[in-house]
């Protein structure tokens, strides 16, 4: 069973790795270096830290989008080419497909963070480079798994990307949204609708990743315990990733495939 899963993983991985992916990665790295150089020219003090943090964040958002699009397109292709129907004629359980996809995501994210490790280590030092690569790997895993769940459920790339990005941004901007809702309650003198909205959003927060699940960019400016920060993130991401895999499995097992 393990051998079958690994064989499926190898097959799926070969479908993702392409020259286009490496070219895109090289272009992103070049863009990050150029934009970082421009920012460095503008800074008066603390230029090195600002540039490292900028490059790290630039790569974070670009790679999140790249990983999401890659995973969503690969699974969408499986739908379009009726790959699932073919796979299900083989002695393979559905969970094995999800497990193989999870492995693909882990390897893809690893592949994406290696150049970031080198780049951030060059600009910000090895310790920060290693932390950022590890933390970014976890963050990319999270958004890719969100993308996997979205594409398995919605079956269309634009919808899946929109859904995954919406969840990602909702989690990232939860602080701002909470602030706006609290302000809206205050300005409306505690109206029922404002309070209801605040309660609903409070409930939504329980099922989206919290701030601790993402790489912490502030470490470039503050002396933080990198290991402890990473351990916190690892715990948050592990729990949320397992939750996403469970939802993906439930959804995938409920699907009917006609032969």
């Amino acid at each position, binding site marked *: 069973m393990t051998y079958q899963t690994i064989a499926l993983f190898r097959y799926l991985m070969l479908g993702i790795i392409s020259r286009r992916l490496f070219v895109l990665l090289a272009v992103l790295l070049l863009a990050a270096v150029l934009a970082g150089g421009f*920012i460095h020219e*503008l*800074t*008066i*003090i*603390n230029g090195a830290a*600002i540039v490292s*943090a*900028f490059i790290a*964040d630039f790569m974070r958002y670009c790679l999140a989008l790249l990983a999401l699009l890659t995973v969503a397109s690969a699974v969408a292709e499986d739908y379009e080419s009726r790959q699932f129907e073919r796979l299900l004629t083989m002695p393979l359980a559905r969970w094995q497909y999800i497990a193989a996809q999870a492995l693909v995501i882990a390897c893809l994210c690893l592949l994406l963070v290696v150049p970031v490790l080198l780049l951030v280590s060059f600009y910000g030092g090895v310790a920060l480079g290693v932390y950022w690569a590890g933390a970014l790997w976890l963050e990319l895993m999270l958004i890719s798994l969100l993308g996997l769940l979205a594409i398995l459920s919605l079956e269309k790339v634009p919808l899946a990307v929109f859904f995954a990005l919406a969840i990602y941004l909702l989690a*990232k*901007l939860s*602080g*701002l*949204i909470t*602030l*706006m809702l609290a302000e809206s309650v205050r300005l409306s003198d505690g109206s029922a609708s404002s309070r209801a909205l605040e309660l609903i959003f409070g409930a939504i927060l329980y099922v989206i990743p919290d*701030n601790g699940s*993402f790489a*912490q*960019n*502030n470490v*470039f*400016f*503050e002396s933080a315990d990198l290991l402890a920060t990473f351990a916190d993130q690892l715990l948050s991401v592990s729990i949320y990733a397992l939750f996403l895999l469970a939802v993906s499995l439930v959804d995938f097992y409920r699907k009917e495939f006609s032969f």
Partner: protein
Amino acid sequence: MRRSERPLLSLPRPLLFAFLLLLGLQALHHHFDQRSLETRYRPLGQPFSAAVYRGLAMGSEQLFGYLLAIRLQLHDNQVGRHFRYQLIDYDLLVDWLDQISGVSDGTEYPMLLASRVYTATGDHAQLRRILEFIERRFDDDPQLHWRRLAEASVIAKHKLGDLDMALGMARKLARQPASVVMPQWARDFEFLLLAELNEVESAIAIIQAMLQSGSVRDPDELRFLQSKLSEFQQKLFESQQSSQN
């Protein structure tokens, strides 16, 4: 061999006339272009509150604060040229600097912009506004901002010509506890300014207190304080003599 030149007036009159006309035209064009350029200056907008910026930063508050500061720093460069600081609304500018300070705690950038960039204005009201900002924000983190307050004190004295304001800042520096590590010269500002304000007796009292407290241990600094003490005592003696005569 030196080539000789024909006198200017011997040139054809239409050519001379055209030259003068075009020179005037160019000067006029430049003059009106400068004025029209200033009307193209886009003023600073009202900033959001620091809490909103912190939310928008998506977890990268420090980086976002720095990027906001850089954006503010570039504000006076528009349409490919640098605009005079007098065009900037300093009330809004101070509001921006306050919000940026609130976004990224522990950053020196807004204070540095205030003391090194925005004090370059020639307008005394604007200068006073920015110096007041530095004096106010110094209290957030005296250890981080003592250099900025020392600079502000010098600017208040020499550029603004407000010795009282400079003395207030110098006094703030001098009164910082020993836990705030800064060079002794920053603490010496107070008595130096007092002497300039002809309050020599107060300056002498401060130096004597410093020497007696034992807080100054550096031999060079001790020598400096003792020489200043002698100088001020001499000055006081001379002024007492002249008043008796």
